[in-house]
């Protein structure tokens, strides 16, 4: 199943890629493959913006805007400001909160 087309913030700068394969190793949706010892994006729209690739690329070749993708959290931040957050850590969590 794929989500909306052409919205994802994922970017790969080929010149910086050394072909280490970390992005292939961590991506849960097979967005990357190695071709000719360089990473290429197979299907941009499969990306869920989890950020694993960007965090694990030691060469700065991959960037993506990762963040909380929960509708409730985004609306909350639209109204009250601040970054969207699920805030589900700790024993003081409201049991009826969105998560």
């Amino acid at each position: 199943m794929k989500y909306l087309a052409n919205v994802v913030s994922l970017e790969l700068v080929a010149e910086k890629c050394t072909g280490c394969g970390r992005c292939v190793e961590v991506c849960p949706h097979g967005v990357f493959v190695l071709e000719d010892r360089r990473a290429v994006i197979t299907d941009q729209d499969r990306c869920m913006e989890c950020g694993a690739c960007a965090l694990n690329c030691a060469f700065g070749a991959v960037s993506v805007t990762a963040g909380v993708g929960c509708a409730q959290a985004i609306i909350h931040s639209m109204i009250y400001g601040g970054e969207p957050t699920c805030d589900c850590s700790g024993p003081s969590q409201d049991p009826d909160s969105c998560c």
Partner: protein
Amino acid sequence: MRYTVKPGLYAVGLPTERSDVLVTANYKLSFDMVRRELKGLNVWLLVLDTKGINVWCAAGKKTFGTAELVCRIGASGLSTRVTHRCIIVPQLGAPGIDAAAVQRETGFRVLYGPVEAKDISAYIRMGYRKTDAMRTVHFRFWDRLVLTPMEVRPALRWYVYFAFIVLLFFGIAPEGILFKQAFQGAAPLLICGLAAVVAGAVLTPSALPVLPFRAFSLKGMVAGIVTMAFIQWCTPLLHGVQSAMTAAVWLLCPAASSWFGLQFTGSTTYTNMSGVQRELRIGIRFYIAVVVVAALLLGIAKAQI
């Protein structure tokens, strides 16, 4: 019942200084599932303090994170327990772990193991290699179905507030608040409201790949329209209902179902923040417009009674 496990280094079987080191979160379910899949192996299991949250969610929040992993490696004295310098981190921990930084700060090289614990022993047997299936996250029918209770719960809270408001609106009369009048007037709304909860919080997640469009708000809307059509033409529930009220429920039910469907984006394995932001930017105008028009229609409906 406590669902956290004390963080630290655990032994599975009888590990030696050459045994593999696996990492997991201190959520009891994660811990127990990993231990079950490791039965028969002799490995070390390093449990991070993720405040009782599972690996993938904790990775997103960075509690299953670089700092915690580095700290736990040091605190557990891992470098004195094993002579090698490799640790196997679950693949879904990757959003929180900077492998290069972990290696710089601890000397341990991170290998990202399979998505599911059940593939760990095969992964090790294959020389720490993953098949495509082992590195992919799926979102099949059962995976979606088990999430529906967590969609229904907040949806029902909305429903209760909605029910209270419409009962009050239809019950108010010069004599006071009349219960029989309230229920008779609001009945179509109460029925279709519940239908919207089922359509948006149960049907939409379950039938996700079958519903048209990629946007969840649209999938939810379609589920709501289908449900309304079923109620209108296959049940007697809306027989004799006046025009304004009929229009109101036909407007509100698909819109509410659309809203509940949109909420499901927070629970999937494949939607992204950019897409949800786009859905919200466009959708919020429609939701507000629907509420305004529906309120007008209900005013007319009350007058028609």
